[in-house]
């Protein structure tokens, strides 16, 4: 348990910058961008291939890709005339870890509620 707390601590204080985290979650707050992440995770592909999947302009898809790139959720590289997009699983894992830390808070709360219930069970009336 203590070790877990130390890990959460380091994670929150050192590994994640607030700006970075905020960018990740803002980026993921959009259904199209979530789908782009999924596609990019499955296999690398060009922005123009991605654009064909959605009912929107190439420029709009390019904007979504830029938001995801700023959040480090995907990486983009130029290959000839094409811009190739890859997924970045590490950033998604960071988002998940943040929620895990909050889970730790609730696990502690449940433990404390359990203690209150067991020591105050007799004659516990409001």
């Amino acid at each position, binding site marked *: 348990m203590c070790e877990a707390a130390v890990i959460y*601590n380091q994670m929150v204080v050192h590994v994640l910058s607030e700006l970075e985290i905020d960018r*990740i979650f803002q980026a993921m707050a959009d259904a199209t961008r979530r789908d782009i992440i999924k596609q990019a995770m499955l296999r690398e592909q060009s922005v123009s291939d991605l654009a064909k999947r959605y009912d929107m302009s190439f420029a709009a898809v390019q904007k979504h890709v830029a938001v995801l790139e700023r959040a480090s959720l995907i990486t983009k590289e130029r290959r000839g005339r094409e811009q190739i997009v890859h997924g970045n699983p590490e950033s998604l894992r960071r988002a*998940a870890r943040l929620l895990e830390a*909050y889970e730790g808070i609730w696990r502690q709360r*449940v433990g404390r509620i*359990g*203690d*209150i219930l067991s020591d*105050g069970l007799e004659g*516990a009336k409001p």
Partner: protein
Amino acid sequence: MSVISVQTDPENLTLTLVAEFAAKKERVWQVWEDPRQLERWWGPPTWPATFVRHEFVEGGDCRYYMSGPDGEKARGWWKILSVNQPDGFEFQDGFAGDDGEPSGFLGTTTCVVKLEEQDGKTRMTSVSSFESAEQLEEMIKMGMEEGMREAAGQIDAILAETSVR
């Protein structure tokens, strides 16, 4: 008591936790309704919570602060959105300014709590939904830190009490 399941959804920023307690749901309700009991578990031992206002009714307002190890105070508020005693309730939780009133800082967390009783045991499901990662991170800073080690000490102290109320 034990945590039955936990589900996190990073894309939608929600945490769903199911816990089971060896008590009737009216009893579990009290740990939320009674501010003195709530104070014993809402904050970790290093950041204990004090509820200065606790209107546990629909539309009710709550004001609390958590006292940090260096004497700093982190203030917060709840707005009770709905109450269906003793089956469940819903509230918003947010940060407050030095005056104790909602500051709008980082938006609100919505928490839906459901209590279900079976064979004298109560299952508590809480679903917390966040607006942003920044908000989530701030909550983690206040609610967590090295508290786990000290939690063990606090639990011992509670267990040592012969009768509480």
